[in-house]
């Protein structure tokens, strides 16, 4: 791939909002998010549970559309707005050009269908390939993602495989049609640490080989440090800080990012004392006060934080933005 296309933005998300109608009212799960994804890069979407990561990702591929979901903004994919694209159009993009790897492979795979059959179905939905050839491709793919004895494993049912193998099947499924974008929604959270590392390695190798751009959703900064090119930190439906991996991990500006990092000892150097968890819990309710959503939990919060919603602003380094009114300074 030439240097010119390597920087090409393939997904440009502007002011994305996802609101769910719940009993108590309208829940702003994603509240005005801007993101850009370049060809072949890994963008990590980090944030604690309920911050809207999955809601954002599912909105991109139209998997949470419905009468109770309200989606606004734009997501430009090769000149086409994914958020308003018709279902029939999205069907041709989903699985072929943008695929998703879900967190819980046991639940996300059809229990009555052979592991290989599920991948074959994905291939044959978008390509006119003879059945036998699709099975051969699937076996090759299983080998690529490091599944033991792929010829036999393609015929196994999901419950016959280990958790790590199942997650690899999920990844094989995601990569089956060589998509431009792979959305991996906490692809390793269900696995234990050693398997987690192996699966991430597989994902990373394949991504490199195929030039796939990955949106990696996680709340695990350890995962992010290993694989991300750029990071967007989400809090209560908004991106509060974004930048390259080095910028966000080593020179964090937003107090929330700093709090997150402080709770991961291995990233901030030698373990000096006990872990600092961030006190309090995130705003996930229907009613949100104006101003910075993190202010109630922030040590640095001052009078300026309760005014209108802080926007992402450029810091001293290019590409490094954060949404702290105080500029991260007390």
């Amino acid at each position, binding site marked *: 791939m030439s240097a010119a296309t390597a920087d090409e933005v393939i997904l440009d998300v502007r002011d994305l909002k996802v609101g769910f109608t719940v009993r108590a009212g309208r829940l702003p799960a994603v509240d005005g998010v801007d993101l850009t994804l370049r060809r072949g890069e890994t963008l990590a979407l980090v944030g604690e549970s309920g911050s809207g990561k999955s809601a954002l990702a599912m909105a991109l*591929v139209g*998997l949470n559309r419905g009468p109770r979901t309200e989606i606004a903004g734009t997501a430009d994919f090769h000149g086409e707005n994914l958020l308003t694209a018709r279902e029939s159009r999205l*069907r*041709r*993009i*989903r*699985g*072929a050009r943008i*695929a*998703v790897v*879900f967190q*819980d492979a046991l*639940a*996300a*795979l*059809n*229990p*009555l*269908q052979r592991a290989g059959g*599920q991948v074959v*179905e*994905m291939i044959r*939905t*978008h390509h006119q390939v003879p059945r036998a050839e699709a099975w051969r491709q699937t076996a090759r793919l299983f080998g690529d993602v490091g599944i033991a004895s792929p010829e036999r494993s393609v015929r196994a*049912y999901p*419950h*016959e495989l280990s958790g790590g193998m199942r997650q690899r099947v999920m990844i094989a*499924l995601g990569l089956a049609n060589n998509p431009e974008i792979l959305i991996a929604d906490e692809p390793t959270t269900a696995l234990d640490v050693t398997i987690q590392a192996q699966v991430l390695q597989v994902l990373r190798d394949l991504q490199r080989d195929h030039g796939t751009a990955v949106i990696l959703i996680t709340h695990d900064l350890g995962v992010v440090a290993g694989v991300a090119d750029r990071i967007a930190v989400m809090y209560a439906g908004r991106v509060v800080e974004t930048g390259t991996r080095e910028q966000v991990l080593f020179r964090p500006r937003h107090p929330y990012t700093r709090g997150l990092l402080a709770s991961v000892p291995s990233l901030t150097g030698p373990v000096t004392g006990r872990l600092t968890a961030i006190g309090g819990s995130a705003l996930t309710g229907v009613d949100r006060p104006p101003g910075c959503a993190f202010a109630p939990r922030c040590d640095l919060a001052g009078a300026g934080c309760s005014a209108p919603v802080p926007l992402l602003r450029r810091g001293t380094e290019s590409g490094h933005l954060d949404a702290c009114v105080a500029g991260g300074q007390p």
Partner: protein
Amino acid sequence: MRYAVRRLLAVIPVLLVLVTIVFLVMRWLPGSPASSLAAAGAGSSSTSQITASEAQIQAALGLNRPVLAQYGRFLWRLAHLDLGTSFFGDNSVLSLLGQALPATIELTIAAMLLAALIGSVPGVLAAWRKDSPLDVVIRSCATVSFSLPWFALGVLGIVIFGVQLKLLPTIGRLPSSLNYAPTTGFVLIDAIVQDRPALLGPWLQHLVLPATTLALSMAGYITRTVRAAVLEVRGEEFVRTARMKGLTERAIIARHVLRNASLPIVTVLGLQFGSLLGGALITEVVFSYPGVGDLLVNAVLERDYPVVQGAALAVAALYTLVNVGVDLLYLVLDPRLRKGVA
């Protein structure tokens, strides 16, 4: 495979219990078989003559022996498939059942298939368009269908299609003019085995009204079951995966939702089979359809105890075997069970 064998073996004790219950009920029923038999054969003879012949008959039937001895003899004969002989007409009970049972099985299967068709399509539609006007209409129809007197409607069907419009025959299974001589007793199979395709037309015509009546009595229930099962499966994560693949809604329903929803649906259908069988017995009486129900009711009226006993055993055995069949069907449908129980 081992599970399948185990499941089949487990049938034996169940059948033994059923057989014992039938035996005891037959003994405890008011009015001894001998007395009714003696009265039936007596014509205009006096009371003392009847009492005398009653004692003779009792001795002949072995009814004056201890109950345990009777039970032992009953089991011994049963093991040799000797169900006795009808009090009337010297037919062995086994041969009577051999004719009646296939007719009942045919009717029940036809009704089950029809009910599954009539019931499941609206069930899927209602689930897919949950809370839409279509869903509301289908749900109401299903609910109403519970409270309708289906067998009265069966009679109405006889009057309209049989008597008024003369479109369909209203009684029996096949016109006697066809001289049907059963090989297996199943007309569909016999038509092939005997190479008599001419049997099929009249057979279907006779089957339509009773099977439809029976099917309609159950379709509403199936609709509700299917709707609930589809709604449940539709919320599963693998359905979202299927959508992520770019499948059309139709492919998602057919390949993922229905396949998985079939597990709870088969369970409910299996449980419902008992009431369908009961319904079949009544339907047979309404339509004079020569199945086990028809046989049973006539035998009860005539106090033909060996036949009543044989028919009761046959129905109980059929019910048990269907439940085994349902369990084995699970093994075919759900790979998780195949591994788990082997």
